[in-house]
């Protein structure tokens, strides 16, 4: 198992050897584990995790607040044309002249009410407006990238595992190794050269219809597809050597039935565990890809906010990323317990 599910969910202790189990154990029934449609344990689990999330967000808020302000340069210090007098008035208007502790409390109070304030650098918008405009674009990019990663990765991994040691296996795994090693801006460069300049079938950049999503989503998903392929292959090979696969064949099932009904779930568990880190990776990876393809998503806003010392927008992005990663991991953990009945929500 990969990390992620392992940390949050507990596997039943294996009962390889039993001792002292006598005739009485015939009627013995272990306590009912996670029953999917009884929502009681799920609810407690969710409440607990949301509690942790709130705490995490507060810590992230506090750390980011002070770290951001400890870096030299403020949002209005960077403008060359500002006279000292005007600068002072701008700072005052954004509380920047107040003691740091007071600023912290003011911002924390506003954040608690859901108001992250105006963007310091894009005066026409509030942070909430900017993020609301960015989320759908980043999500669209992320979802397509994830679909690329999963479909390509799982298909390649399955083919590799089935044709283990063959030419197909070796070529797919070589491609996967390259895919993991190549940073996505390099992949982007190659793809742009191929499909924008030489064979102009995709637009070079900007946001618009589905054609604009294809290349960036592919670049974003490719390293993860490679990783998923390797995980699928190892997972499948591991499962295919399990005793219960032999049992399934002894039952008289065809190879395809054995694969789909018995091997797939276990073989894909490592992929499911990897989804948590993968989603986080796709979110952060989009910082680079969004810049290259000029996609007006969260990544672009986040990077620019950091460069411009747009404290409020940077803070909004940090909080949003934290929430997204947290919620996605939560979903992955729940998904894990659904695929693997041995794992319980903790």
């Amino acid at each position, binding site marked *: 198992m990969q990390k992620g599910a392992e940390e949050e969910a507990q596997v039943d202790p294996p009962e390889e050897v039993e001792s002292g189990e006598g005739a009485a154990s015939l009627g013995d029934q272990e306590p009912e584990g996670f029953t999917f*449609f009884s929502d009681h344990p799920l609810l407690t689990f969710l409440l607990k995790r949301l509690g942790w999330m709130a705490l995490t967000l507060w810590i992230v808020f506090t750390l980011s607040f002070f770290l951001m302000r400890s870096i030299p*340069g403020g949002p209005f210090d960077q403008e060359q044309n500002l006279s000292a007098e005007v600068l002072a008035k701008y700072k005052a208007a954004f509380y920047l002249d107040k003691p740091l502790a007071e600023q912290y409390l003011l911002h924390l109070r506003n954040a608690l009410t859901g108001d992250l304030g105006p963007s310091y650098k894009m*005066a*026409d918008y509030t942070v909430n407006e900017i993020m609301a405009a960015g989320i759908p674009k980043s999500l669209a990019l992320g979802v397509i990238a994830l679909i690329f990663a999963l479909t390509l990765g799982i298909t390649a991994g399955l083919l590799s595992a089935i044709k283990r040691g063959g030419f197909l296996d070796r070529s797919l795994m070589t491609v996967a190794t390259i895919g993991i090693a190549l940073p996505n801006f390099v992949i982007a460069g190659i793809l742009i050269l191929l499909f924008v300049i030489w064979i102009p079938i995709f637009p070079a*950049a900007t946001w*618009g219809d*589905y054609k604009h999503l294809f290349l960036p989503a592919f670049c974003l998903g490719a390293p993860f597809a490679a990783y998923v392929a390797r995980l699928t292959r190892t997972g499948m090979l591991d499962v295919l050597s399990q005793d219960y696969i032999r049992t399934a064949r002894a039952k008289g099932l065809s190879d395809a039935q054995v694969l789909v009904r018995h091997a797939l779930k276990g073989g894909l568990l490592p992929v499911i565990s990897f989804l948590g880190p993968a989603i986080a990776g796709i979110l952060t990876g989009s910082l680079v890809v969004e810049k*290259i393809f000029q996609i007006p998503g969260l990544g672009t806003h986040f990077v620019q906010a950091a460069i411009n010392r747009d404290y409020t927008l940077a803070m909004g992005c940090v909080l949003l990323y934290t929430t997204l990663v947290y919620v996605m991991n939560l979903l992955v953990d729940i998904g894990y317990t659904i*695929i693997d009945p041995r794992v319980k929500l903790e």
Partner: protein
Amino acid sequence: MRRDRNRNLFALGLALLLLGGGVLALQGATVERADFTFNNASEPQSLDPKVVSGVPEGRVLRCLYEGLTNMHPKTLVPVPGMAERWEVSEDGRTYTFHIRKNARWSNGDPLTAEDFVYSWRRFLDPAMPAKYAQLLWLVVKGRDFFDGKVPSAEVGIRAPEPHTFVVELVHPTAYFLDLCSFYPLFPVHRATVEAHPKTWSKPRNFVGNGPFLLEARTIRDRIRLRKNPQYWDADSVRLNTVDILPVEDHVTGLNLYLTGVLDWETDVPQQVISDLLKRDDFQPRAYLGSYFYRINLKHRNPEKARFLSDPRFRMALYLAMDRKAIVEGVTKAGELPSRALVPPGIPNYSDARHQPPALPEMDMEKARALIEEVKKDLGVDKIPTLKVLYNTSESHKNIAEVIQQRWGQGLGLKIKLENQEWGTYQASQKALDYDISRSAWIGDYADANTFLDLFVSGGGNNHTGYADPIYDSLIEAAAREADRDKRREILYKAEEMLLRDLPIIPIYSYVTKNLVRPWVKGFYPNLQNVHPLKFVWIDEEAKKNAEGR
């Protein structure tokens, strides 16, 4: 059995949800191509003239608004804008503008002198002034109002009649009419601003007075403009729609240009300049900007301060710098090596008919001699290691490496390079926390003053610690001087002083790096790299021919 089915259904549901999300994600709208698309290289800080202070903002605002005067697209001299004519008083301090009778806001409201009174007072508003507020300290009591000492009514801005706007200046100002076409001084629509204090600049509320309307704006995506039928000179506007993209990465921008998305790209990546120079659509021209190194004259480290504050030492640094190697080996777009701060081409200062002061050419012998002299005078043999600070960028780094090599091998100095990300770099420079720092300045208007007044004592953009009352008084005297020739001579003296004291080391003057499609007409090269879209049009015939080929 049932539990398996539930689990499988759930897993299937999740997979379908993901796929559904994918389908939803692909439902983006196709954007109809505009008549003219250009890359503005960044998202404007705002569409409010009061809040902005940058070149990209200027490009957008000049489409949406118009000032009292306009810039001539070729020469950039002030031509009538909202004011159809104006008179200047004998003493050069009172300007009377006659607003055109057919001047209108985009919602049809008539535009009057009152609009300018409101906008300029708002510009100076002590509570939340414009970023460029000091521009209007030129106006009588402008500074006092900004400081909250007098009410707005006392400021020297009046509208004696609906179409007469009168401005009283503290002293005659040679470039005042140029300022009137500068984007921070554009008027805003009072009723809209007051009705929607926070959202008036959004497309749904926006009211402007320029050649184009704000049709749509998506953050860091695009701004869509449409021709404004209410504009007084709408007949001359030939573009119906304009798209403004904020692509920061110029490699991406170049790709967009090469694939036909952009008609105009405002900058290009450094590494392809040699290739682009072979193209007809890339024609670098002189640009009103200087690239130079600042030197910290008030260094906190006494060891370093001894050398850095010695003008002979700074002169040695200047003399040992190979500017030709930099423009030919690094920047490559035809930049001119500088021997002064003010770039060439400024009318009545550094144009073809006038010779402003300049430093001598590179001279290693002299530079070495000066270093020896300084060492001897100070009685030290070892010069501490000096750091050259630059903001992270390949081309700044390459330039610094050339300089490091000359100062190192030529003068025997130990030079270290230090790069900082933009925000940190700005803060270091502002706090005088550096030895030598890469710098640049783009002039706001075509006058030497925009460069020379940087280095007045305590100036907001001085950042060198240079402070000389004589220099300050020269800048002040030039501002008050109404006579062009006399004023020029005063400014020459100021620059001469600056070049003697050398708080900065000139390196080169900028060139524009526009990529413009051959069928784009009404687009003229000029010193300030300002290209009002009001005059731009597409030669459809040429475009068809070019695309057909």
